[in-house]
């Protein structure tokens, strides 16, 4: 057990520990991005033959795989990790992860085996979700328990860099395969290659992890017969520890998650969907900022060993709260100045019966918003139009007024598919023409996209991510005693990132559609990060000097 610090370089054994642990989280991210990048192809291969009712159920299950199952995995594998050991538990999680990913690559599609194909696919996704829930906590705990006392921040921060590595690795494998075999073959069978390739990652990970020793702190505890017999009860059944779990969630990981999702995923979404920057340019700019920002995970992880975890994480949250509005506004001016000018110059008003307007929160994607008010707002929000809401007469269809042009919206409820499509096209065309006349650009003008300024802004957002995410693993590890560490830290991490972070895009869109201002989606991360800042500053204690073995 590394307890006393000596100012020495990292040993070969410690490097191996970090590498072995990080490889598993690379896997996690590789898989995460594969499913994102290949979603359209996978949907076509496995779900396209389903009727509407079945598709609805599978959509709910796919949602569950991402949001519900991971915290259960955190509890399930966390408990195992605290009872039988870190090494064997995160060996099991990576095996489940890797084998499930591989099997997706060889799974027959809907055309071959019918409904069994999506059923098996969803089962594999659920298994992956379970394994993911146990992976991060194991990796962080394992590395931290091997690290010298005053280098836990630096050592665990390497795990935090794997998100970028996993992203780029998945893109390289996907694009490499596409280029090698061509688009048609890729859509037909080549998409399987990135999944099958994961078996190589798995083999290397398992080989290395098998050669590793158990965490010294856990091995000592086990030898002395002091391991927890009931980690779940001790973690969540006793207020003394449960309150720290709750604080870790609302005073740390919730804020960290929304800052992370805002800086990486929402920024990209905002660039392409709100500011209408073309996808290729947006991808490049986001990638450059991620690559510039990645070393800062190590910088802030190491810095947290010197000045503390709490100041860095809290400063990251505070800066997010204070700067998101001006920063995203600056992003608009840099990426699509014509849109910014149109928003300032043109007044758009939606008049509607307030009783037929919904808060369009749709995390599963299965709810259909069909009222004239909802449709009017969807179309305007998707066009990045800032609009004012005015209460109209009860029962009257909503209208959109752009300058002097007034357009009546429609309700699609109960309409036959063809008629609904025709009305949708007609309505969108009318709105688009009126917006064009009012100066709203359909797309960002490439000649006016200030790439340098956008890169600087995106890099700033990524650096905020590194501030909150770089030291978080060390801090979570240090908040809990060895015998229930794996269980206790995994749950707040996955609820924070899965729920608070994962719900950001859909919540932000619902707020934007509701209020008529494309920046108002930022209220979600601002409020959550603000909550974390206040609660964290008041209730969360600094942990860098904590002796994590004190209660062993």
């Amino acid at each position, binding site marked *: 057990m590394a307890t006393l610090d000596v100012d020495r370089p990292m040993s070969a054994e410690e490097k191996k520990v970090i590498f072995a642990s990080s490889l598993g989280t690379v896997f996690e991210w590789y898989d995460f991005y594969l499913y*994102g990048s290949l979603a359209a192809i996978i949907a076509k291969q496995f779900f396209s033959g389903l009727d509407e009712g079945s598709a609805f159920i599978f959509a709910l299950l796919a949602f569950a795989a991402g949001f519900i199952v991971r915290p259960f995995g955190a509890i399930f594998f966390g408990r195992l990790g605290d009872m039988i050991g870190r090494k064997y538990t995160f060996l099991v999680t990576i095996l489940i992860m890797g084998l499930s990913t591989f099997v997706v690559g060889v799974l027959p599609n809907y055309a071959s085996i019918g409904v069994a194909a999506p059923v098996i696919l969803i089962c594999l996704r659920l298994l992956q979700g379970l394994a993911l829930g146990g992976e991060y906590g194991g990796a962080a705990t394992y590395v931290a328990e091997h690290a010298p006392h005053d280098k836990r921040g630096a050592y665990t921060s390497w795990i935090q860099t794997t998100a970028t590595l996993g992203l780029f690795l998945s893109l390289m494998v996907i694009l490499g395969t596409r280029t090698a075999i061509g688009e048609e073959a890729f859509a037909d069978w080549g998409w399987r290659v990135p999944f099958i390739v994961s078996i190589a990652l798995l083999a290397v990970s398992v080989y290395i992890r098998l050669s590793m020793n158990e965490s010294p702190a856990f091995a000592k505890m086990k030898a002395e017969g002091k391991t927890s017999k009931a980690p779940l009860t001790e973690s969540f059944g006793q207020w003394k520890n449960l309150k720290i779990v709750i604080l870790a969630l609302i005073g740390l990981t919730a804020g960290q998650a929304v800052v992370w999702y805002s800086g*990486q995923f929402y920024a990209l979404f905002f660039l392409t969907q709100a500011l209408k920057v073309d996808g*290729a340019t947006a991808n490049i700019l986001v990638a450059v900022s991620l690559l510039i920002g990645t070393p800062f995970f190590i910088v802030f992880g190491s810095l947290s060993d010197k000045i503390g975890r709490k100041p860095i994480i809290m400063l990251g949250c505070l800066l997010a709260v204070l700067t998101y509005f001006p920063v995203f506004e600056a992003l608009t001016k840099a990426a699509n100045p014509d849109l910014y000018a149109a928003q300032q110059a043109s007044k758009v008003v939606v008049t509607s019966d307030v009783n037929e307007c919904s808060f369009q929160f749709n995390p599963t994607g299965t709810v259909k918003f069909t009222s004239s008010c909802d449709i009017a707002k969807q179309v305007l929000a998707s066009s990045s139009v800032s609009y004012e809401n005015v209460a109209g007469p009860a029962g009257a269809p909503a209208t959109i007024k752009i300058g002097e042009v007034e357009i009546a919206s429609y309700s*699609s409820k109960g309409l036959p*598919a063809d008629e609904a*499509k025709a009305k949708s096209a007609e309505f969108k065309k009318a709105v688009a023409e009126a917006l064009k006349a009012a100066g709203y650009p359909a797309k960002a003008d490439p000649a006016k996209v200030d790439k340098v300024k956008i890169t600087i802004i995106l890099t700033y957002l990524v650096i905020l991510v590194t501030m909150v995410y770089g030291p978080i693993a060390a801090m979570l590890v240090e908040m809990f005693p060895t015998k229930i560490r794996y269980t206790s830290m995994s749950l707040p991490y996955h609820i924070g990132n899965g729920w608070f972070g994962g719900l950001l895009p859909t919540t932000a869109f619902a707020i934007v559609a509701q209020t008529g201002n494309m920046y108002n989606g930022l209220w979600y991360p601002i409020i959550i990060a603000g909550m974390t800042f206040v609660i964290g500053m008041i209730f969360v204690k600094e942990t860098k000097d904590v002796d994590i073995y004190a209660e062993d």
Partner: protein
Amino acid sequence: MLKIFIGFVIFAGLAMFVIMQGGDSLDMGGEKHGADAVHAPAEAASVAASAASADASAAK
């Protein structure tokens, strides 16, 4: 540390090459959930897209 730095620079260069080659056919938006994960092309693109297209798909 120098070896890691050099390795990272090479990796970054390779990654940028791939992304520039990929153009807008690459989706860096992360994992898809719910209906986004089971609906093919048009609706899979984004949350906004799926929300905005809800009217069109309402009567499917």
